[in-house]
């Protein structure tokens, strides 16, 4: 440890340790429960019935079934598309652009835009699902306002373009988070730095790209990790809107996981699915971690 230069820390180590204690305790509980979820993936544990009490170890059988039974691989592909377009491209980029555009502004416009994106974030999932279904239905807003006036036959978007519709709905629902995080992060970029760049003649785009982005790099990485995880595991919106259908068109891994663990009641197989999801996102996050590294 090289904290010699920070005596207010080194002389108070026990206080700092005491402060960490509650978190350590709670994290311990979380790890304990998580260990259970891991262990379940090697069992035939069921939600109800005999196997919910008298479960047994089944080795790697659940993991083998990920590849030998219909569902997992298709869902994985659907999830990758959903996460990429709704979270990484949609929420993250849009959230950053909004935060950068509205930074420092005190105008009415900022309040209006913030209320709009905040309402999406705060609306209960189930209500958001009905709202988007009503908007994209044959008698919905898009048809009444755009398609029909153009003289085209009404389109049942939610059935014919299910995956794009749930993707857009999720951008609408989730952008608030990225916006909030980036707003707060941009706030921590000191104004002097930005002003200095301005004086040096940097264009607004250059100021964002060359000055602000590098400084908030850790927040970008963290945000990527968070929204990837949330979108990977996010299920109420899609489940209420399409139930994963038509067919399996919008059956993301989270919906597949729900169907296997709760509808079918196979918690063992369900746990195996979530462990596999964890491995996939863990691999993805290695790329994000590179973002965290300081440039040479």
């Amino acid at each position, binding site marked *: 440890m090289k904290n010699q230069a920070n005596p207010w820390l080194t002389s108070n180590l026990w206080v700092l340790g005491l402060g960490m204690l509650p978190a350590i305790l709670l994290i311990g509980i979380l790890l304990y429960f998580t260990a259970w979820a891991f262990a379940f993936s090697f069992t035939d544990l069921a939600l109800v*019935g005999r196997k919910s009490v008298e479960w047994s170890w089944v080795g790697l059988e659940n993991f083998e079934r990920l590849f030998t039974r219909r569902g997992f691989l298709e869902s994985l592909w659907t999830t990758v598309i959903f996460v990429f377009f709704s979270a990484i491209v949609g929420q993250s980029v849009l959230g950053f652009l909004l935060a950068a555009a509205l930074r420092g502004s005190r105008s009415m416009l900022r309040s209006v835009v913030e209320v709009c994106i905040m309402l999406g974030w705060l609306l209960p999932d189930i209500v958001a699902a009905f709202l988007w279904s009503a908007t994209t239905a044959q008698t919905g807003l898009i048809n009444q306002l755009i398609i029909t006036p153009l003289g085209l036959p009404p389109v049942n978007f939610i059935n014919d373009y299910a995956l794009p519709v749930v993707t857009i709905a999720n951008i609408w629902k989730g952008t608030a988070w990225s916006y909030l995080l980036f707003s707060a992060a941009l706030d921590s970029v000191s104004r002097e730095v930005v002003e200095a760049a301005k004086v040096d003649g940097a264009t607004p785009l250059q100021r964002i790209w060359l000055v602000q982005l590098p400084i908030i790099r850790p927040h970008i990485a963290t945000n990527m990790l968070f929204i990837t995880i949330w979108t990977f595991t996010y299920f109420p919106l899609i489940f209420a809107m399409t*139930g994963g*259908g038509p067919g399996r068109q919008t059956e993301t891994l989270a919906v597949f996981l729900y169907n296997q663990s709760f509808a079918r009641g196979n918690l063992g197989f369900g746990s195996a699915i979530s462990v596999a999801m964890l491995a996939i996102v863990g691999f993805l996050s290695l790329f994000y971690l590179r973002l965290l590294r300081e440039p040479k």
Partner: protein
Amino acid sequence: MLKKVLLGSVAALAMTSALSAPARAEVSFMYAEWIAALVEPGIEAFEAETGETVNAIKLPGQGYDQRIALDLSAGTAADVNLMDSFMVSELASAGYLHPLDELLAGWDQFQYYMPGLLEVASYQGQVYALPTDTDVRMLWYDLSNFEKAGIPTPWEPKTWDDVLDAAQKLKDAGVRYPFQLPAGTKQAEAATMQGVYMALLGADVPEGDRNRLLNRETGQWIGDSPALRRTFDLFHQVYVERELNTAELNYATDIGAAVRAALAADELGILASGSWEDACLWDCNNPPSREERDATVAWTPWPGSGVEGAKTTTNISGGWTIGINANAADKDMAFKLITSIFDEGNFKAWTLANHRMAVRTDISESPEYTADPFLAEATKLAADTTGRDTVPGYQTVSALIQQATADILDGVPPDEVVQEYHDALVDEFGEENVVTYE
């Protein structure tokens, strides 16, 4: 500042939550919101008569099944509980419910319960809960579209071919959803009950349970059988081969509303559903007049497949029940609460006001009940009904059936679907508990 206020509120909260532990009541009772009109007058009558207080816990329907299973297994459940009939055997087999036979023997109104319906709430010959209501299933059809397609009404199909022919005529006449047959995972239990099981029961001879999902004699699930193949083929014909319907309605966000809208727009031909549609095909709480309903839609029993020896019409019923927690402190008091709820005056008033199908003969044979032509007619179907295979594991099998219909909608050939279904059953229950019929 804000934070200090909030810190204070947390401390206050810790104290209030310690204080607001449930008041000690003699009897606790958990039920779902939608049945309040039946149970709440019963609770009042019980409290007035005994002087006890009831700790009533009213829950939304959402998440109800999860909570009751968890509560009963953790020993935190109320003394008296409302539950879906299909859960009774599962919960009884785990020892969570108190058998009612002895208590029922001392109740003069028990004799009126229909035996077939008590069977659904029984496990190994003992009654574990009393049904609140029941339902039957049938094919509804839109009269104006039948006229447009030139199909004479009243429509009386005798076989599946008659149904498919009618659907073909409706399709040719431009009807958008000629035969709405519930299928797919979003339909959940409706795909199993209103769709698969209604077809399956008439797909083969009843001997040896060849027309069911379970051989009730041996307790083995049927992984492959001519009846299953015929049933899946029916779905394949409707959704893929002859395109007598699109998948759309099955994946609508609010399926009920989508079906209602289709009916209002004259886009619906035949709808496989149940007795509740008499009101719920419109606004459940506010249906149009009897005359208006009769002028719009009519219904016919589900015909059998036409295979020799198979049933000519089929039906399957579900419903909700009320039972007693095996850990209830005072079972006599708990049972007294149940009898207050199901006391003839209260029970009958609710059944009539809500157009429920009666589960007791003293109500179903009353002049007020038989005066409702729909209920009187539909109750006849209940004479030859059956229940789900309510043995432990049913929920799993039902989910697999729903997945199978979803795959058919997706265009997977029925042969492959049967194979997948069989393999999944073996995964879940082991080779020895799955049987194949040639």
